[in-house]
């Protein structure tokens, strides 16, 4: 009898989805809500993994794309009953035109996904067609994150400033607010769909070329592929997925603030991938879950020590497991036969 042989990473994926799918049955309401939020982070982690893990483009300001989706959704949700409160406080009495356009939640979903994709596409178009190397991409995206945070903090009338936009209603479908379990499984379904999409995309010819670009750009160019077009495309797709994560994050978390979308959150995602492992989707997912769950357990008791430990772990991972935990595991399994 032939046994279906799955690679180790797929088994880990299955195990993760099994745990996530069954978790609400435990009845731990507080943790169900928390895990729901972390599931949104999975989408964000994958969006960075297809960009950095597969195509080798280290985006240090990825949360900008996440934040654009999140803020579009948050603005739309807060404008359901006329002019949002924080805008009124700044003296805006009339609904601005652009806000009217995204008042319908479905319009907001669409804009929240397309706007970051557009920004990524434009930036990619502009940068990748020149000789700009990988390091420049990292630094430009890093400074973009700083400018974006600055912008959010200063345009208090449109973004709620430092405090962000709070008191957002949870997920709702066709005007009916969802219960916690319903909303959990709604997010779970979205996570599964995004996972299948990323898997299929990375297993396709497109994904193969991306890995080729990561390994040897010049050779890919000699093989007749327009590398800048592929890089721009993956950046745009990654932007759309990051935007989707943001769109889900706003209602799931109930609020959004500059801290959730700036340099800090961008670097957090980089840490998940570095520790979990890049270029397998599995590593990104496990890294994101592991660090968030551990961080939640430890940061209350240890505070800054947790961050300090995280810094040390990054350095140690670079030296002793540059392929990340999952990469290291996969290697060990392979060697054992």
């Amino acid at each position: 009898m032939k046994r279906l042989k799955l690679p180790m990473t797929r088994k880990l994926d299955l195990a993760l989805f099994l745990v996530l799918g069954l978790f609400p049955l435990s009845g731990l309401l507080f943790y169900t809500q928390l895990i729901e939020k972390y599931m949104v982070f999975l989408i964000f982690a994958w969006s960075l993994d297809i960009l950095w893990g597969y195509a080798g483009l280290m985006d240090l300001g990825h949360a900008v794309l996440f934040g654009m989706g999140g803020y579009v959704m948050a603005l739309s949700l807060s404008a359901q009953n006329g002019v949002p409160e924080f805008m009124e406080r700044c003296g805006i009495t009339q609904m601005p035109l652009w806000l009217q356009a995204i008042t319908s939640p479905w319009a907001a979903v669409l804009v929240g996904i397309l706007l970051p994709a557009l920004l990524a596409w434009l930036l990619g178009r502009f940068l990748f067609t020149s000789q700009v190397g990988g390091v420049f991409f990292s630094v430009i995206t890093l400074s973009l994150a700083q400018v974006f945070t600055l912008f959010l903090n200063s345009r208090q009338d449109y973004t709620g400033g430092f405090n962000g936009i709070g008191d957002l209603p949870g997920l709702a479908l066709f005007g009916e607010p969802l219960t916690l379990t319903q909303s959990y499984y709604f997010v779970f379904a979205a996570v599964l769909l995004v996972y299948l999409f990323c898997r299929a995309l990375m297993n396709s010819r497109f994904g193969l070329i991306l890995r080729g670009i990561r390994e040897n750009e010049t050779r890919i160019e000699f093989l007749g592929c327009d590398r800048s077009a592929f890089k721009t495309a993956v950046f745009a797709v990654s932007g759309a997925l990051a935007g989707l994560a943001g769109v889900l994050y706003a209602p799931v978390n109930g609020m959004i603030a500059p801290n959730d979308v700036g340099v800090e959150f961008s670097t957090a995602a980089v840490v998940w991938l570095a520790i979990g492992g890049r270029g397998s989707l599995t590593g990104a997912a496990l890294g994101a879950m592991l660090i968030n769950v551990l961080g939640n357990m430890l940061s209350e008791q240890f505070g800054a020590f947790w961050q300090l430990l995280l810094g040390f772990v990054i350095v140690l991972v670079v030296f002793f497991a540059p392929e990340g935990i999952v990469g290291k595991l996969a290697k060990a399994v392979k060697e054992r036969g």
Partner: protein
Amino acid sequence: MDSFFALLLNGLNSSALILVAALGMVVICGLMNVINLAHGELIMIGAYTAFCVTQKAGLSFALALPAAFAAAAAAGAVLEILVIRRLTGKPAETMLATFGISVVLQQTVNLIFGAQSQYVAIPLEGNFSLGHVVVPFYNIFTILFVAAVLAGTVVFLKKTRFGRRVRAVTQNRSMAECLGVNSARVDTLTFAFGSGLAGLAGALAAPVKSVSPFMGGPYLVYSFLTSVVGGVASFFGTTVGSLLVGESSALLGGLSNDVIANILVFLIIIAIIRFKPEGLFAKERR
């Protein structure tokens, strides 16, 4: 007209601060080809050293400057020996590791001093007025001091025996080793020198900017963009680059507001990097 002149002088002052920070970056990134994401934290170390020397120990600011240089240089030397050296030729890994280091340094300082902003007294009180424009003495001191640091760095690298070795190692490592240069030691000292310059930038900025564990981020971005715009290996280019960044954010900031100015400067720099990735004043590389 007066306000324009005031903005120009303000811009000159911030240009000077950016220049010292970027000089360290030029030494580390331009000469050694290392992307150090902990550069901002070396600046932060310099600022905290200045804080400790002047506020905690109650000593003069004149002592704080060399102390900041020494503290940051020592940190840089340790960083080079423990981390950077082992990752030669792996730019992505270097970026990730130095990023981890930056988190470690931020949190260590955070644990020791707390997250709140620290205050460093302005060492030179008083100001004089030119027409209607008031110029603090400390700004003049900063500009002159930075000019001296720039001249000193150039002389140090071009004229001294050690500077010659540094340039020999960056131009042809194996040849320099054949001629008896201890390249590992040169690497450590070069990195320490660049880090020391970063520390000096932190000490100079401490009295006029906020000193906190997380102050490094913007400095990292500014010094990187400045050195890239000028051409990473050119001191003249870096000077022009810092003038460009400092003056344009001050002038645009005066005309509109700080945020729009920052966004505009950022866009201009992206455009420059896009069309001249080798920098405005790149040296011909053979």
